[in-house]
Structures are given as structure tokens and as C-alpha cells.
């Protein structure tokens, strides 16, 4: 198996390239598909593989073109729509919820909608309230959709290929900061599981479930907890719909403790669903009340002046877990200082370079 060290963003681009070579029915839609920026490079240099017929420059008509893609998917194409920000998907929610998610069901199984919608979540550099929402709960609410949040490069490549192969509409929410994460990525046509969360770290003291960029924050926290002799079962949730909690339930049986970290709002977030399912089915296994972390109940402002303490970070994760386990305050303070030191010189509105990996 040959691998190369690339970023999640490039791995997604390579996955789209492989899918296009593998199946002529794959067609691409994006605003600025072929422009110099090529959707943050994720659609760069695909013309050789796809040709002009299969690379469709999208007029600024998200609902219309999403409907066009659904119609094409019903007739046998496998469209991939790339949106620069998930907020633009809101214009297409009518088509996504009513048609993409339900045509297979309503037609009693006669129609299939093998459609992929990539939507990018922004953060930092003053993106502001309408360029930094993640909205994963909104899409995950709808039966008939599959909702993925890739984090690591190799998995992201496999996920986009598997999503394109899937017979159902798949929403892929890519965090812009995850695009920068690097790792070894297998060459060729590789697939990823679209059913289960991935176990990132194995431990006995706490079950920690995070999604998207929050997995990276959680990993930093886990390393610091490890120094205190605490081991964590860390899951990258990956697949938000259909939500398969089997391995997480098993983990609760072992640890008796749960923390969820949402990339989006805490209120009504995926974490709320996971905690409620865990409490409903593993109540007697729990040694302490589950902890939920996520964004506060307000829009995310642009200025860097507002940001300190707003996002969930490794410090919040570390501190909550250590306190729940009764670790001495003096040790917690040392751990927090160590975590803060890592990004002391990096402004809060750009990713900490150490987060890039390679993982």
C-alpha cells in the first residue's frame, strides 16, 4: 500500500478524482468549480478526469441546482455539489429535505437519489455569524439523509468515495480547519465505513465523543490527561445520521462516564441526543452525570475580541474531565497552563499549527 502525506482538503480532492475515474456517472457542481480558487483547492485539476460535460459550473442558484442534481441523480447520475459555506445549503433546504431525503421513501423504493452535498463550515479570521455556523443538527434531524463529518485525511478520502458510491443523499460537513489537518493517505480508490464512529484512543476512565475539528481539541486534552494517569476512550463520531451508538454504548459499559463535544451549539446538539440515549439505556452503568460541551446560544461574532473562551477547546475538555474525576486543583492548573502554552503565541482566530499533525 502506497501512501502520501497530504491534508484532509487535498485528500477530499483526490477522493473526488478517484470517484470520477471509477464511474463516468459522477458529475460535479459548484460555484467557481474551475475558478483559480477551485473551492479551496478541493476541485482543482479535475478537468482531465471529468471533462467539461461532467463539470458543471453552478449559477448562483443553490435551491434550483440542488434540485437539478436531485433530478439527475434520479435518472442515474451521481452528482457531487460543493458549497463554500454550509449557510448556502440553507437556500437549498427545500430540495434537500423534501426531495432528496424523501423520494426513495415516497416512491416506495422506486427512486434513488445518490447525491453528495459537500458543505464547508467556517471558523476564525472574522468569518462572522453567517459564515461560521455548522448546522449539523439541522441535517441530521431528517431521516433519509446521511450526514458525515470527516476529520482526518485518509478517512476523509474514503468517506467522499464511499459517499459517492452510496445510493442515498449524503451531506458531508467539512470543517475548514480540518482541511489543514495532514496525515498519510492511501493511494487509489479507497473506501471508508459510513456506519460507525471511529475509536481514536483506547482508555478506561472516560468515554469522550467528539466530531469534526473538536476531535483534534479532544486529542490534545487526552494527551494532557494521560500525563495524570487518566486514559480516555475517544471517538470521532464521523457519521451523525444514521446515528449508530453501539460502540459508544459498549464503551460506557467500560468507563461509566461520558462527555460529548459538539462542533455546533450545545443546545439541541448531537451531544444532547447521544447523552439522552446513553442515559436511557445505560443509566445504571453511569458513575457520574454525563457532560456536554458545545457552542453557547448566540451567533458567532466576527471580531477576534469576542472569541476568547467562546469555542470549546482542549482546556475546557481537560478541565471538565479532570474535575469530574476529582483530580487535585494544583494538577489541573499545571495541565491547563501546559495546554495554553502550546498556543500562547498564536492568535485565537487562526488554527494552532500543531493541530495540523501529521496524524
Amino acid at each position, binding site marked *: 500500500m502506497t501512501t502520501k502525506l497530504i491534508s484532509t482538503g487535498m485528500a477530499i480532492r483526490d477522493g473526488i478524482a478517484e470517484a470520477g475515474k471509477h464511474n463516468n456517472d459522477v*458529475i460535479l457542481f459548484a460555484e467557481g468549480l474551475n475558478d483559480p480558487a477551485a473551492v479551496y483547492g478541493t476541485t482543482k485539476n479535475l478537468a482531465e478526469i471529468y471533462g467539461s*460535460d*461532467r463539470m*458543471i459550473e453552478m*449559477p448562483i*442558484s443553490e*435551491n*434550483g*441546482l*440542488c*434540485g*437539478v*442534481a*436531485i*433530478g*439527475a*441523480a*434520479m*435518472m*442515474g*447520475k451521481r452528482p457531487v455539489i460543493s458549497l463554500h459555506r454550509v449557510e448556502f445549503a440553507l437556500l437549498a433546504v*427545500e*430540495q434537500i429535505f*423534501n*426531495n432528496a431525503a424523501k*423520494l*426513495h*421513501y*415516497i*416512491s*416506495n*423504493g*422506486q*427512486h*434513488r437519489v*445518490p447525491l453528495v452535498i459537500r458543505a464547508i463550515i467556517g471558523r476564525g479570521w472574522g468569518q462572522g455569524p453567517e459564515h461560521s455556523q455548522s448546522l449539523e443538527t439541522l441535517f441530521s434531524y431528517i*431521516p*433519509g439523509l*446521511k450526514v458525515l463529518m470527516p476529520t482526518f485525511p485518509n478517512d476523509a478520502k474514503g468517506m467522499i468515495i464511499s459517499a459517492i458510491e452510496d*445510493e*442515498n443523499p449524503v451531506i458531508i460537513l467539512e470543517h475548514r480547519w480540518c482541511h489543514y489537518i495532514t496525515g498519510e493517505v492511501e493511494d487509489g480508490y479507497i473506501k471508508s465505513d459510513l456506519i460507525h464512529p471511529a475509536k481514536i484512543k483506547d482508555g478506561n476512565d472516560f468515554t469522550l465523543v467528539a466530531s469534526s475539528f473538536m476531535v483534534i481539541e479532544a486529542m490534545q486534552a487526552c494527551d494532557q490527561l494521560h500525563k495524570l494517569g487518566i486514559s480516555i476512550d475517544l471517538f470521532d463520531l464521523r457519521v451523525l445520521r*444514521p446515528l449508530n451508538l453501539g460502540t459508544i454504548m459498549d464503551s460506557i459499559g467500560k468507563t461509566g462516564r461520558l462527555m460529548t463535544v459538539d462542533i455546533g451549539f450545545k443546545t439541541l446538539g448531537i451531544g444532547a441526543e447521544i447523552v439522552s440515549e446513553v442515559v436511557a439505556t445505560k443509566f445504571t452503568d453511569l458513575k457520574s452525570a454525563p457532560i456536554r460541551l458545545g457552542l453557547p446560544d448566540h451567533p458567532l461574532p466576527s471580531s477576534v475580541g469576542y472569541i476568547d473562551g467562546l469555542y470549546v477547546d482542549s482546556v475546557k475538555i481537560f478541565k471538565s474531565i479532570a474535575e469530574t474525576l476529582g483530580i487535585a486543583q494544583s494538577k489541573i492548573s499545571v495541565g491547563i497552563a501546559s495546554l495554553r502554552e502550546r498556543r500562547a503565541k498564536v492568535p485565537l482566530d487562526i488554527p494552532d499549527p500543531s493541530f495540523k499533525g501529521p496524524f
Partner: protein
Amino acid sequence: MNNLLKIYKDSLRIRKVEQAISDNYQVQGQPQLMRCPIHLSIGQELLAAVFCSMLTVQDKLFSTHRCHAHYLAKGGSLERMLAEIHGRATGCIGGRGGSMHLTDVKVGMIASVPIVASAIPLAVGSALTSLIDKQSDISSAIFGEACLEEGVTHESMNFASLKKLPVIFVCENNMYSVYTNISERQPNRDLTLIGKAHDIQSFRCDGNSSDELIDTFQEAVSMTRNGGGPTFVVVDTYRWLEHCGPSYDNHLGYRSEVEFLKWQKKDGLEQLLQKLISSNILTIENQFLLEAEINHEIAKAFEFAVNSPMPKPADASTHIYA
């Protein structure tokens, strides 16, 4: 002229099916068997019959909540349509959608979507597939004039025109969105200007005139079928019954009895019948026979629907994912 007779038969069959649904929807003292909203097409049958007579089984059609006429004209199974409206497992989509979602894929009745204008981009996507795959079929969306108020219609037309897609946009202008007249919703304009603004060849005709319908659709279909790109046809028509339900609703006062009578007097079916009789294509006797034949078919289809099994609760959770 054989074609005219076929159009008459198809339109009459649609009207009689709709009338039978209306008659049987709520029968005093009997339990209601059709337990879903119905949007009947009486008054609007002719355009469906004319247009679909020019389509092949391979051509794809997309419709709206008011889809009965389109489904039947495209060749959809009457038995399975009535079973669908009766909520039966034998319905065209197993009782999952009811009257507003009529589908019969094997005759090219691809989907009916009740959300206003929601099916229009699907037709454009279907046409895009035909263009990419170099297939000769065309796709069409039939929709009400309220769709001209929805943004997605313009998005769809813009893209269809840009790519010169083989798609026909057919607007049934019955002037009312539920109880609201077009004059309260749109400026007083020639509706074909909307197609023209997207550089789409646009036509308008009288939905009660078989001659006008035939001439107009022949031109539009031939243009789109022969690589001329999308076309847009506005058909002026009138819904005789209420927006949703089995009855007349002139007593509500949102439209006048005078207006209704004016349109009823122009009934396209009656005009076509007179034309067929005066040109000796159809005799009164044969017309009676034709009606009897249609009545018999409808009675049998109702029997099929009513005697079909209901779907099982356990099957409500199938086909969520393919």
C-alpha cells in the same frame, strides 16, 4: 383526426375519473375511504391530453399536487392511482404519498411534488442527464402559474436556457392560488415574458381550444426534441372545483359565479365533442358507448382500489435508505 378522437377520449376519461372521485369522496352515511387531500383537474383536462399525446413513454414528466390529469394522460395506471388515493398497498407508490404524489415510473410519470415549484428543477436535472448521455428523450414539468412567483422556477429556467436542455416548462394558468387571484399576486403582464427573459422560446394558448393546444405544443415539442433547447408554454385554463376537495366553491365569494359560468361555457371538451360530431368522426351513439366504456373501466378500478389491502404498519419504516 384520429388524433383528435384520442385526445377527446383521454380528456373525457380524465374528467370522468375526477368526477367519480368527487362523487365518491364523501358519501352521506358511509365511512370515508379516500382519506387524503384531493386536488381535482376538472376544467383543465384538455391540455394534459394534448401535450401527453405528443410524448413517448421514454419522455419524462414531472407534476404537482394537481397531478391526476397529467398522470392519466401520461399513461399511469388508473387502478393503482385510485388505490393510492384509497391509501392501499397496491397504490402506485404503496400508499406513501396519496393523491399529491402520483408516480408511474415505467410510463415516464417520474414524480409529482406538492410543494409549489419543487418538481421543476427535477425535470431540468432529468433533461441534463439526457443531454450528458446523448439520449433523445425530453423532460417536462407541468405546474401552476403560482410557480412563477417561486425563485426556483427562475433558477431552473436560467440553467435550462444556459445549457440548452431538452426540457419543456408548461404553465397551467388557472388564475388562482387557492383562493387568491393572480392579480393580487403578480403584476399584470404577459406571462410569456418570463420565459423570454431567460431567452427561452415562449408560447401562450387557450386551454379550451384543442386546435390552439395542438398547434402550440406541436411547435414547442418539436423545437425541444430537435435540439432547440427549452421551451415555455403558458396555457390559460380554469379550475371548476375548489382548490382542494370534491366540491364547487363559488358560494365562498372569492371568485364570481359569472366568471365561473363564462369559463364553463367555453368548456374545451364540449367544444371538441361538437367538432368531432360535426366532422362525422364521432356520433352521439358512439359517444354514449364511449362514456359507458369509460364508466365501466372506472367502476372496475374503484372496485380494485376498495378491495385492495391496506399497507401494514411494519412497512412504514421500509425504504428510508436505499
